[in-house]
């Protein structure tokens, strides 16, 4: 096809598309109040306003969730010594560490009332303290305990309230295996490293943000595929002590985390 003919064809298609879009705007708009609809024929072409809203926007598929959380953490290393020695407190004090976590979930099963998901999360926290001489004098050196917690998670999100009654609260519960990788640094480098397995459970509550700005939520979904956005807060009980074998650095704690989550 010659260029001139192609250009003409494109222009025709463009004009036709514009004309089609403007031909009957009522088809895409709610009916005016009081309009009577003949259920036998027009109902198929002109559904009621509520039904139309659902037809207009059904949302993108939802399979995954991504969550970023932060919270305080204080490893119970000294628990091993039953109140006698306190090497952790002596070195790092009792200041809370900042636990930062990133979680990825696969929402693989929809069951009545909610969603079952499996996922993994990992994060980082760091304790920095002064290295002391054997006779207790503080030196100019720092010693560091780095911890990378990883959680293998099975979770349930109870989103019945949000889906059915427009209550923007979604309780959830997570449980799983925890693996904390840790390493100790001194001025010369890595002094020791290891890992401590354990388990955890974590009930929480998510505030669905879609309810506060539906337009933005739909735009977020249509443009990026994000179905729902949440603010979350959850309790975290991590029993990370090597399942009680007594040969592990005890890194357990009862704490909470808060963050944001996105389902997509």
């Amino acid at each position: 096809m010659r260029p001139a003919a192609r250009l003409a064809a494109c222009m025709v298609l463009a004009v036709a598309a514009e004309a089609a879009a403007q031909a009957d705007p009522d088809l895409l708009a709610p009916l005016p109040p009081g309009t009577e609809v003949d259920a036998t024929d027009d109902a198929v072409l002109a559904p009621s306003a509520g039904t139309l809203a659902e037809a207009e926007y059904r949302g993108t598929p939802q399979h995954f969730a991504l969550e970023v959380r932060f919270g305080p953490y204080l490893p119970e290393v000294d628990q091993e010594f039953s109140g006698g020695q306190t090497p952790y407190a002596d070195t790092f004090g009792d200041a809370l560490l900042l636990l930062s976590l990133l979680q990825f979930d696969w929402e693989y099963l929809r069951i009545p009332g909610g969603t079952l998901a499996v996922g993994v999360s990992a994060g980082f926290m760091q304790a920095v303290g002064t290295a002391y001489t054997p006779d207790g004098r503080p030196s100019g050196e720092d010693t560091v305990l780095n911890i990378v917690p990883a959680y293998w998670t099975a979770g349930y999100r109870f989103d019945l309230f949000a889906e059915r009654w427009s209550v923007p609260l979604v309780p959830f519960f997570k449980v799983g295996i925890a693996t904390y990788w840790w390493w100790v640094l001194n001025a010369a480098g890595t002094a020791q490293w290891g890992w401590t397995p354990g388990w955890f459970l974590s009930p929480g509550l998510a505030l669905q943000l879609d309810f506060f700005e539906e337009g933005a939520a739909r735009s977020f979904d249509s443009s990026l595929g994000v179905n729902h956005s949440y603010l979350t807060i959850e309790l975290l009980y991590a029993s990370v002590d090597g399942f009680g074998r007594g040969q592990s650095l005890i890194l357990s704690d009862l704490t909470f985390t808060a963050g944001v989550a996105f389902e997509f």
Partner: protein
Amino acid sequence: MEHSRPMTSNCARLPVRLAAAALLAAALARPAAAGAALTIELFDRENRGAVDDEPTGINIADCASNEAWNFRTSLSSVPTNAHLDVWLGSACDQRANRDGADASDCVQVYGDLTMRVGYVNFMVEAPMLVDPHAPGCAEVKTTTKVWVLILNEDADETVYNSGTYDVSIDTQRPAAPVSVTVDFGESRAIVSWEMASSTAASEQWGFRVLCDPNPTGADADADADADAAADADEGAEADGADAGGEATETGGEPGGGCTSGGAFAAGDEPIDAWYCTGQIVGSAVRVREVEGLANGTEYHFAVVALDDYRNPSLVSTVVCTVPSEVNDFWETYEAAGGRAEGGCTCAVPAAGRLGDVGVPALLLGAALGRRRRAARDRGDRR
């Protein structure tokens, strides 16, 4: 057809040749007319690999070593009745500035250099550039202009041609760092300091740390003895300037946590043997770990600042510490009786215990998967 050529004899051409020779001689006898300005090029410096290596000017070390600055200028022709001079100073192309009547007049370095087509080379030593009137290494921050002048040999020595080259000079020491402190570690010390408030950050290029004993193996003591005596007066001046520092100045005596006098004292001119670190570049850097120290030995530390010409300051206040064994967290943990084991071998649960958790998890997963497949099948049937 054959053309005939006019006959000319040698006798007929001779007057023409004589006239041309006379004109040429007359032209050469007159003072030459000025050509394009001369260019002066610095093509070699003793203390630099390349002439544009930083710092491009003259600093204290350059001056102290009588660094040779080798210049050259290029001539495309050699004028007659003129000579080539090299002068240092301001406006040396003015006759009045070359007569020596004033103390600020230009100083002649070379007179009547041999001119030839091509390069004419000449050398000027750094102390001459620092102070042409009294060559030496006085503390100055200035620019000296090098002049190459081709002067007509007339009564006023008018300038036939000239060129200049600017040499920047900084032989002033920056202020010594202040608030020098030291902390010990295991086989190491952590030295920290602050930049003197009188030093502009733009003029601060870096720092160097001095150690005694020097763990780098330099023979500090041998050089220190000679230097300390020579610099006693300057040291006293620097002491006053650094009075605000945290550490006590030693002045060659114990102080700043020191139990004995060391190789250097506050206010000394630093020598290479004392440096135990390289150049610590950046005015924002304020701390340095010195490694490789012997536990239980007292070490003396000081810091010098380096300005943008790499001039070192005088030695800062001297502080001391004794490196000692320290425990990191793991050592503290083990000393407390901690039973955890590190590495891959630690805390691997027994198979039975892992199974206690893993088997139910697998069963739960399988059940949920089966339920999901069933739900999907029902959907397909619908």
